[in-house]
């Protein structure tokens, strides 16, 4: 059942019902036992009384045969409960009460017994009077006893059945009233605008709802922060796209407005450069968003570092025809790393692109492996201008463009590389080389990589 109100109602009704039923059952059995005890006592008493009456000669047993005078009293429910027979030891019926049957109520000589006579069950007490040679039997019709107990139970259960619908109504109302704070909260949330992420007030709400409201407020705060971040990022991205678009428009206007063939050709060439740059910017924005939102997944695949770098370098050099060649050391080419391949590719691509764009066409770039104390680094070295020391702490900031930027620079490459490294548990370290150029290191913890390498070479046992 989905509704809390319905569920509470059902639970309350069923438990109340069960409590009532057991109470009635308990009353039934205890009443029955008590009634039997009292009536049995009465039987005994009546039998002894009759016996003593006979002993004191108030009833003449010799006047047997003539049935006692019948006293006609209208039948009331509990009238003539008791039937009495007086038998001689020789088996003659000395006397009996009006309601008593003709045959003996019991075969027992004395004590309690139950017999069935003519479809009726009798509870009989027999007492012998050896002095007079008679036996007194006093019996109760069990039907009458049962009716007594049933009447008691009916007297209890009937009002209960009548009260039940009232009780159900009261329970329903109480449950509804009890759940009112939940409904109030639902109304508050339902009327909220999508942009409203302010915290819900919880000072005067019931203690059961407070944790829910606190969790909701926590969620609101997180969503709000995420949205703020996204808004900033979108604004930044939109802002960053405006400059290349302005450049494209200006060049297009020149191409349209100039009759000079050289100027037009130059403008068109600039447009191509501008479009390439804008396309790269858009791809980097997508990479950044993906890396940030965990779109690349968190599965720990493994990367063939040499093949990956070779593929990336070929791809980048396709777009930059006269770019510097890339050399990959033999040790690095054999390295396999147990990290997320997509993240590694994104990080390495941006570092390689940076290196290729900044290197003079005749100076090769070098990719090699450095094993240090407790760590291991994929190193990418270029012969470009490096990064001014004062800019090093800032180069990984988004949209930061240093003094040594290239025309393709977007200010996002290193930010993406750093984010991707962090996501695969590596550290990006940048430093200027003494002989000129930049050295970028992707540092992986040795222990982790060793373990991962064993795992991957053993054929992924997990």
């Amino acid at each position: 059942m989905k509704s809390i109100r319905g569920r509470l109602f059902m639970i309350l009704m069923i438990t109340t019902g069960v409590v009532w039923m057991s109470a009635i059952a308990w009353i039934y059995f205890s009443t029955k036992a008590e009634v039997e005890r009292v009536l049995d006592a009465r039987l005994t008493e009546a039998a002894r009384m009759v016996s003593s009456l006979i002993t004191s000669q108030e009833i003449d047993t010799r006047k047997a045969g003539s049935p006692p005078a019948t006293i006609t009293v209208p039948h009331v429910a509990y009238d003539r409960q008791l039937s009495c027979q007086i038998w001689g030891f020789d088996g003659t019926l000395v006397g009996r009460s009006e309601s008593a049957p003709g045959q003996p109520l019991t075969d027992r000589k004395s004590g309690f017994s139950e017999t069935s006579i003519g479809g009726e069950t009798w509870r009989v007490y027999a007492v012998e009077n050896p002095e007079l040679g008679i036996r007194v039997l006093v019996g109760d019709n069990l039907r009458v006893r049962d009716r007594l107990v049933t009447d008691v139970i009916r007297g209890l259960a009937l009002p209960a059945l009548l009260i039940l619908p009232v009780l159900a109504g009261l329970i329903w109302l109480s449950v509804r009233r009890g759940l009112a704070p939940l409904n109030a909260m639902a109304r508050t949330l339902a009327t909220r605008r999508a942009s409203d992420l302010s915290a819900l007030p919880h000072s005067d709400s019931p203690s059961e709802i407070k944790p829910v409201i606190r969790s909701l407020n926590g969620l609101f705060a997180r969503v709000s922060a995420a949205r703020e971040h996204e808004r900033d990022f979108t604004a930044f991205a939109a802002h960053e796209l405006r400059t290349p678009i302005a450049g494209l428009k200006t060049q297009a206007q020149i191409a349209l407005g100039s009759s000079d063939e050289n100027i037009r050709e130059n403008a068109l060439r600039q447009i191509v450069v501008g479009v390439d740059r804008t396309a790269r910017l858009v791809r980097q924005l997508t990479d950044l968003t993906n890396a940030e939102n965990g779109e690349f997944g968190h599965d720990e695949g493994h990367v063939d570092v040499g093949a990956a770098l070779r593929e990336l370098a070929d791809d980048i050099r396709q777009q930059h025809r006269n770019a510097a060649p890339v050399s990959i050391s033999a040790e690095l080419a054999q390295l396999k790393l147990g990290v997320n391949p997509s993240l590694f590719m994104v990080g390495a691509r941006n570092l390689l692109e940076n290196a290729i764009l900044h290197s003079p066409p005749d100076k090769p770039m070098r990719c090699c492996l450095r094993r240090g104390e407790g760590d291991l680094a994929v190193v990418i070295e270029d012969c470009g201008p490096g990064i001014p020391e004062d800019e090093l702490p800032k180069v990984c900031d988004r949209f930061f463009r240093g003094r040594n930027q290239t025309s393709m620079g977007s200010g996002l490459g290193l930010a993406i590389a750093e984010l991707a490294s962090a996501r695969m548990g590596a550290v990006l370290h940048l430093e200027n080389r003494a002989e000129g150029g930049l050295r970028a290191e992707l540092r992986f913890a040795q222990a982790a990589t060793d373990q991962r390498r064993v795992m991957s070479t053993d054929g992924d046992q997990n």
Partner: protein
Amino acid sequence: MRVLLVEDDAVLLNGLQVGLGMAGLTVEAVSNCADAKLALETSAFDAVVLDLMLPDGSGLDILETLRQRQSKVPVLLLTARDSVPDRIAGLDAGADDYLGKPFDLDEVAARLRALTRRAGGHATATLHWRDIVLDPASMNVTRAGEPVRLSRREFSILRALIDRPGQILSRSQLEERLYGWQEEIESNAIEVHIHNLRAKLGPGVVETVRGVGYRIAEASS
């Protein structure tokens, strides 16, 4: 008219340099704060086109330095940040005009003309000297209602002289106004242009002040 262009995006820088050149402006282009400050300290410009986000600082710093030096050169801000508070901040920092990216090339040129016109104390779009009318926007010149066809360089020289009648401009001053830093100037280029101007406009317009430079007489005389 000589304009300093400060912009760090290479494609846009090239576009503005070529485009404003086509509109008759001489454009010096730099792409960072340091170069811009150096250029402003060492040369005279009729206007500055300034991008706000530069790799080594904000264009507003350049603007501030410029105004601290009591320079009255008109400044046009070009920026991707064109929200109202950004515009207000820019204008209050001493900028004369503000254009958000992306913009129209012709609008940049028109705004620069308006800015320099105002800075020169003129309100009309055209410059007048006796019966000569010069329209910087269309680069047309008429004398007594008759159109005179001038080249871009000739037009620039005439404009520089008509801007301040009576004032003498030396050959190097004229060269600076006509050519960017990277352009090769032939040693007698100015003389050739002056000669052509005189041929097209007739005598008595451009005077030579021997050993000093060139001028046109004050309009009233």
